[in-house]
């Protein structure tokens, strides 16, 4: 830790920006009405209302989906916003942590003052209407539309189900290297579902057992159906501004204490080490900037596209040593009342997952630090981590958030 000579430079912007508004749109049915553009507008308005700001205050636009070719430009036009900062960085499910990092940096350097980050997708209702939905179908359609990509030439002929097959390969390797068991992976799904039972907005609210997970059919061995995330509609938005201006916002600020991002590969066949994600870089970078260690984290919101995604993140972020993720989760410590509360809204496994879950990590982290979570509130939460993971374990981005007391 602290080996990066630029850490001191990055620390100058520790706490300089804050999330002041957060909102998400989800439904226990998994479906939402309306176009994605409408849902984006609704989510933004709700987040601005949450902050006590208006669209006229917005001068930073952050969007990596929606529209066609130029997401942030098309969205800004729709909203009637002429921004001074625009950002459409696309890193898959980690995009919203990346955009949060970019927004905080832009605000710290004075490039914009009020930043909006938004996401909406309706794969569940789209699939019902005959669309590609999300996952294999949509990804293949996109891959086949353009010039010959390495994925189409060197992976697609072998019939890996996407994306679950890629994560299954990582799980296979982790099991062989470290003795990780299907029961240990299943425990992550069980703990996450325990949280979902306490969230009336969650898609799946019935408790499950390890036996239930193991009895659910394989999607791609060794991953069972209940090791895999949902496919739902969903939308969310967060609003960031400077620490100074946050003091005047309706609910104050949740401060961006540290950020870090990295990626290692695009295709799973090109992942340098199937048991180590880019989180081993992004996590320490974010923690160093924030001046914290894993032990300081009160609540962890970490991307759970699959149970193995969580296991690898726990190791890479330093909550346990590499290879020890299985025993680490086996006592149920990720669940309510556990020593390492994680994915307190029910996660992508049980709350919602419209394809790029990272937005919902930020929203839940903000709610936990504000103490808004009711029965699932982690008592006294002062520091939260939102850790996104995109592609096929390809990109990670880690955001450390804290209350006023931690600034």
């Amino acid at each position: 830790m602290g080996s990066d000579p630029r850490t001191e430079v990055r620390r100058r912007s520790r706490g300089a920006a804050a999330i002041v508004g957060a909102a998400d749109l989800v439904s226990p049915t998994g479906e939402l009405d309306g176009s994605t553009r409408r849902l984006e507008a609704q989510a933004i308005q709700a987040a601005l209302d949450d902050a006590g700001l208006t669209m006229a205050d917005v001068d930073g636009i952050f969007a990596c989906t929606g529209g066609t070719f130029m997401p942030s430009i098309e969205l800004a036009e729709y909203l009637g916003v002429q921004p001074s900062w625009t950002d459409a960085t696309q890193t898959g499910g980690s995009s919203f942590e990346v955009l949060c990092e970019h927004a905080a940096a832009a605000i710290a350097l004075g490039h914009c003052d009020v930043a909006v980050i938004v996401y909406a997708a309706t794969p569940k209702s789209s699939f019902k209407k005959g669309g590609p939905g999300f996952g294999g179908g949509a990804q293949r359609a996109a891959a086949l539309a353009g010039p010959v990509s390495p994925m189409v030439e060197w992976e697609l002929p072998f019939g890996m189900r996407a994306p679950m097959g890629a994560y299954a390969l990582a799980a296979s390797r982790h099991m062989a290297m470290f003795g990780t068991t299907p029961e240990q992976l299943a425990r992550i799904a069980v703990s996450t579902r325990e949280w979902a039972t306490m969230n009336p907005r969650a898609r799946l609210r019935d408790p499950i057992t390890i036996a239930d997970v193991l009895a659910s059919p394989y999607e791609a061995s060794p991953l069972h159906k209940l090791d895999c995330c949902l496919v739902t509609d969903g939308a969310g938005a967060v609003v960031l501004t400077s620490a100074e201006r946050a003091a005047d916002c309706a609910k104050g600020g949740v401060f961006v204490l540290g950020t870090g991002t990295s990626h290692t590969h695009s295709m799973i066949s090109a992942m340098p080490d199937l048991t180590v994600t880019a989180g081993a870089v992004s996590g320490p970078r974010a923690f160093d900037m924030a001046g914290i260690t894993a032990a300081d984290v009160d609540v962890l919101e970490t991307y759970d596209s699959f149970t193995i995604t969580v296991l690898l993140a726990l190791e890479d972020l330093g909550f346990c040593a590499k290879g020890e993720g299985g025993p680490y989760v086996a006592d149920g410590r990720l669940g309510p009342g556990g020593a390492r509360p994680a994915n307190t809204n029910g996660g992508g496994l049980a709350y919602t997952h419209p394809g790029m879950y990272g937005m919902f990590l930020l929203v839940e982290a903000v709610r936990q630090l504000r103490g808004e979570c009711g029965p699932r509130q982690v008592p006294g939460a002062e520091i939260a981590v939102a850790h996104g993971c995109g592609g096929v374990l390809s990109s990670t981005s880690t955001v450390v958030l804290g209350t006023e007391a931690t600034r």
Partner: protein
Amino acid sequence: MSGADPGPRRRFEPPVGDSGEPFWAATRDQRFVLPWCRRCGRAHWYPRERCPHCGGMDIDWREAEGRGLVHAVSVMPKPALPMMAEMVPYTVALVELADGPRMMTNIVADDPWAVAVGDPVVLIWEPLSDGRHLPVFRLEG
């Protein structure tokens, strides 16, 4: 090739991209070749015009061993594409080649569920409809 009807396609047949042409051409003769960098002397996969190890741009295609170890493996109980329906259950694996690089492939096995990480495997060729072949593997011995 014999010109015999290869039957219905069971797979998505790979298009030939910018860097893969020498590989696919060699598969017509069932020759397994890999791209080697003349500067650093290492093989890489997937084929690129620039060596990912050292940045060298002088790539040499050389005959390779066609042996390796199963690095990771997953059984697909459902097909990734409808045309693969009759293949299930089948394995998707990453194989660590004796020549260094790791590649995605299938391990053709009577019992796909028994294929394990660390198993030694050897290359076999599966014909494609245009005379090329697809490199897949079977358990050694």
